[in-house]
C-alpha cells in the first residue's frame, strides 16, 4: 500500500500491451475445444501438484472448480464485510470497498422494496441477493484471463465404440496441435502448427512440407518422428494401456506383452511402422508423455465459468422455483393451490371453464420457469465466453476489449434478471388472486 500508484498504472497498461503483442507474435492463440458439458479432470489429478483430492466417485469437472472459486470469493467477501462492519451507528465505516458494498446492498434492498413491498420483502431480498451474488461472480469469472486457456495438456482422441456391445474397442486421434515446451513440464500449444497424422502427411506436397518445417513444425514435414515416449508414472493407467496394447498387438499379429513391457513394445510397434505401413500401429494414448509429437494435443482448462454448465443454472432455477412455492404456501396456506386448480367458479360463472384452463396453464408455467431460468443464463454466458475466446483468437490485441466490456455488463444484467424474476415470481406467489382486482381498484 505504500507505493503511490498515481500515474504509474499507465505504464502497467503499456507493459501489458507490449507483452500481449510479444505473446501474439511468439505463440499465436489457439481456438479451444468447445464442449457444452463441463470437462472432466483427468484421473489422478492433484491440486497444485501436491494435494490429492478424496475419491468421491464423482468426476471433478472444471466448471465445478469454477464454482468452488466462487464459493471461496463469497466466503472471503463475507469475512471482509463482517470485520469492516462498524459496531455502532456513530462509527464511520472504513474502506472504499466496504462503502461500495454497503451502497450496492442498500440500493438493491430499496430496489426489491419497490417490487415486493410487504411482510415478505426481507426474505425475498435474501433470496435475491444470494442468487445475485452467486450468478454475478460466476459470470464475471469469464473476464479473468487464463480462465479457459490454462489447463491440463491432454491428448485429443475419440473413443471408438463398438455399436453392438457398447464397449470401447479403440481410439481415433482427432484434431489438435503440436506443443512447445517453455519450462520443464510447462507447455503451450503451437498455434502455427496443427497436428497432422502420418497418413495425411504423405499426401502433402514437398513445398507444403517445407513450409511447415520453416514454421518449426515437427509433424507433416516428411521427417520420421521419433517413437512415442511413455511417461514414468504410467502405472495408474497400466492396466488400461496393457489392455489397449493387447488389442493393438492382436491386430498387428504380434505377441501381446504384459503391463511393464508395454513401453518397449510400443517402440517396437512404431519402429516397425515403415515395414508394415498398412497395419495399424497402436499407441497407448493414456501413457504418452506430455508434448509428444506423435499425438495431437489440446488444453483442458483448469477452470471454466460455472454458469456455462447446465448443472449450476438448473440447480439455481430449481432452488428459485421451489422456494417460490414455499413462500406461496406460507403466505396463502393451502389456498395457494387454488391458483393452479381453480374450480371455484366452474358452476357459478359462464367463464368458469376458462378459469380452470388458466389455472392449469399456470401450473405448466411453473415448470416452464425452470427451463427459461436455466437456459437464459446458460445461453447468455456460454455464448459470451465463446465470443470472448473467438475474438481473442481472431486478433488478441485491443480488439477483444469492447467485448470484455460488453460481457461485463451482460454478467451484471443476467445476474439482476435472474434475481429480479425470482423476486417478482415470489411476490406474485404471496398475493392471492381474489384480492388482486380489489387492490388495483384501491390503487387507482
Amino acid at each position: 500500500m505504500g507505493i503511490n500508484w498515481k500515474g504509474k498504472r499507465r505504464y502497467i497498461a503499456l507493459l501489458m500491451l507490449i507483452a500481449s503483442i510479444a505473446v501474439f507474435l511468439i505463440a499465436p492463440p489457439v481456438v479451444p475445444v468447445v464442449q457444452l458439458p463441463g470437462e472432466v479432470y483427468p484421473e489422478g489429478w492433484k491440486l497444485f501438484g501436491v494435494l490429492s483430492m478424496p475419491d468421491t466417485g464423482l468426476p471433478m469437472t472444471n466448471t465445478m472448480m469454477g464454482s468452488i472459486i466462487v464459493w471461496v470469493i463469497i466466503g472471503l467477501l463475507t469475512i471482509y464485510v463482517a470485520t469492516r462492519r462498524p459496531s455502532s451507528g456513530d462509527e464511520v465505516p472504513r474502506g472504499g470497498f466496504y462503502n461500495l458494498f454497503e451502497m450496492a446492498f442498500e440500493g438493491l434492498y430499496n430496489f426489491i422494496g419497490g417490487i415486493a413491498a410487504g411482510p415478505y420483502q426481507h426474505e425475498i431480498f435474501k433470496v435475491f441477493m444470494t442468487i445475485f451474488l452467486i450468478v454475478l461472480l460466476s459470470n464475471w469469472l469469464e473476464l479473468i484471463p487464463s480462465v479457459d486457456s490454462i489447463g491440463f495438456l491432454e491428448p485429443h482422441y475419440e473413443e471408438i465404440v463398438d455399436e453392438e456391445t457398447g464397449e470401447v474397442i479403440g481410439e481415433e486421434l482427432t484434431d489438435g496441435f503440436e506443443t512447445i515446451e517453455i519450462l520443464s513440464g510447462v507447455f503451450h500449444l503451437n498455434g502455427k502448427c496443427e497436428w497432422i497424422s502420418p497418413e495425411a502427411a504423405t499426401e502433402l506436397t514437398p513445398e507444403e512440407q517445407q513450409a511447415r518445417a520453416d514454421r518449426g513444425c515437427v509433424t507433416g514435414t516428411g521427417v520420421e518422428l521419433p517413437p512415442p515416449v511413455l511417461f514414468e508414472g504410467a502405472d495408474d493407467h497400466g492396466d488400461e494401456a496393457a489392455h489397449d496394447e493387447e488389442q493393438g498387438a492382436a491386430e498387428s499379429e504380434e505377441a501381446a506383452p504384459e503391463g511393464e513391457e508395454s513401453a518397449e513394445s510400443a517402440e517396437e510397434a512404431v519402429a516397425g511402422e515403415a515395414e508394415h505401413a498398412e497395419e495399424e500401429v497402436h499407441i497407448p494414448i493414456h501413457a504418452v508423455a506430455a508434448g509428444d509429437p506423435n499425438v495431437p494435443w489440446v488444453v483442458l482448462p483448469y477452470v471454466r465459468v460455472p454458469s456455462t454448465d447446465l448443472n449450476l443454472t438448473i440447480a439455481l432455477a430449481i432452488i428459485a422455483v421451489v422456494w417460490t412455492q414455499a413462500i406461496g404456501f406460507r403466505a396463502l396456506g393451502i389456498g395457494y393451490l387454488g391458483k393452479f386448480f381453480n374450480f371455484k367458479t366452474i358452476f357459478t360463472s359462464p367463464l368458469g371453464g376458462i378459469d380452470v384452463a388458466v389455472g392449469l396453464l399456470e401450473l405448466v408455467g411453473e415448470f416452464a420457469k425452470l427451463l427459461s431460468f436455466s437456459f437464459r443464463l446458460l445461453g447468455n454466458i456460454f455464448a459470451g465466453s465463446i465470443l470472448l475466446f473467438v475474438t481473442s483468437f481472431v486478433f488478441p490485441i485491443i480488439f477483444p476489449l469492447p467485448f470484455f466490456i460488453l460481457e461485463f455488463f451482460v454478467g451484471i444484467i443476467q445476474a439482476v434478471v435472474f434475481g429480479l424474476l425470482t423476486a417478482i415470481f415470489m411476490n406474485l406467489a404471496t398475493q392471492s388472486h381474489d384480492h388482486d382486482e380489489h387492490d388495483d381498484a384501491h390503487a387507482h
Partner: protein
Amino acid sequence: MESEALITLGKAIGAGLAMIGAAGGGVGIGLAVGGAVQAMGRNPDFTPTIQTNMILGVAFAEAVAIYALVVSLIILFVL
C-alpha cells in the same frame, strides 16, 4: 469421409436455421426499449419503474432468442 462431411454440413445448416429465431427476439427487444424510451421521455419521473419493467420485458423477449441460441449451440457442440 463422405458421411462425416454430410453430418458437418447438416450441423452447420441446422445451426444457422435455428438462429433465425433470434430475429424475433431482436424485434421484441427493439419494440420494448423503443416504447420505454418514449415513455421515459414523456414522463421522466417514472424512469425507475419503467426501467425495471423494460428490463424484465427485454429479458423475456431475449429468452426466446437465447433458446434459439442454445438449440444451435447444442446442434454444433453436443450432437
